[in-house]
């Protein structure tokens, strides 16, 4: 391909356009993986840009405000038996997602072994962990809105941008988890029913890619929003 490009550049512009047509129309396969997997990766790439823009926007507003940023360690702390544990709920949510990532990886493995019972069971377990995550997030939001008085336009603890970035970033991530729970449940049901016996079990890996990505985004949110 590099060779074609150099000869094309030397030739007339018409010849260059011909190379473009042949390159795009010659039934070549660039990515030697099932097309669904390539498309999922490209979708995840676009999602990477969305989440990166959110996190970069958060960095920008946090850097630019002269008002002190609320301390996430205190804001997200929970009182357990009279003791204040910092970031407790967020820690549990992190471990919940990591656990679900492991069960998902095992589901992919059992799918390729054509052990569809175990693959489906592990996918349902993964989806259940995802549902628990969303539940904990709903609890967290409720506590922040009703008890701490955090709003997208302001809060009693400090910089008013805190609420806007928090609800936008965790909300968009929670939406991804919710969609993932539905997606995994549907694929798991089809796996259990034997829909993929002929076509093969790449679909489990593709669904798994999405789920691992959701976990991956949480790794970055946890580091930059909650710990920083």
């Amino acid at each position, binding site marked *: 391909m590099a060779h074609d490009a150099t000869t094309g550049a030397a030739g007339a512009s018409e010849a260059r356009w011909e190379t473009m047509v042949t390159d795009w129309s010659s039934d070549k396969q660039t990515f030697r993986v099932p097309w669904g997997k390539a498309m999922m990766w490209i979708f995840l790439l676009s999602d990477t840009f969305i989440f990166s823009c959110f996190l970069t926007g958060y960095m920008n507003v946090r850097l*630019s405000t*002269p008002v002190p940023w609320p301390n996430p360690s205190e804001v997200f702390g929970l009182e357990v038996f009279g003791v204040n544990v910092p970031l407790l709920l967020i820690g549990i949510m992190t471990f919940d997602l990591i656990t679900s*990532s492991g069960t998902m990886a095992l589901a992919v*493995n059992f799918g*390729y*072994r054509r052990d569809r019972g175990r693959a489906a069971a592990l996918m349902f377990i993964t989806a259940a962990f995802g549902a628990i995550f969303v539940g904990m997030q709903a609890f967290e939001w409720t506590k922040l809105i009703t008890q701490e008085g955090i709003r997208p336009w302001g809060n009693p603890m400090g910089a008013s941008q805190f609420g806007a970035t928090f609800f936008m970033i965790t909300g968009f991530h929670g939406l991804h988890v919710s969609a993932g729970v539905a997606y995994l449940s549907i694929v798991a049901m089809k796996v259990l029913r034997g829909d993929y016996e002929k076509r093969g079990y790449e679909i489990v890996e593709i669904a798994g890619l999405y789920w691992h990505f959701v976990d991956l985004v949480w790794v970055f949110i946890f580091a930059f929003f909650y710990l920083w």
Partner: protein
Amino acid sequence: MAADGQQHPLKLYFWIWGLLFLFSGASYATDFLQHGYFRWGLILLFMFLKAGFIIGIFMHMAWERVALIYAILGPPVVLLVLIGLMAVEGDYTELTRLDFFSAPLVPAGHEAGAHEGAAGAEAAH
């Protein structure tokens, strides 16, 4: 390409799973440290370790062909430009705000000849 797709020993997944738990626990522990370069360094270290293991092993990127690896992992590198620009911009905005908000505000029309101060006060509203 094998018909059975990505197939690796279960032992590997359990190892990575354990490591991810370990790194998660370690990053949670950084919350008990004082804010500073040591803490931020550890946060980034554990974050990149977790991200690397998730992408490389759980998402099987380590075994994919180079064409796919570079098509997916290459483009996000340009985000560094955005992050760099926004960091500079954020610092600049903060300095402008500190400068502006620390300037004494003169109520409009109360001081004769203080047109510049009055203009500043109006802009603040």
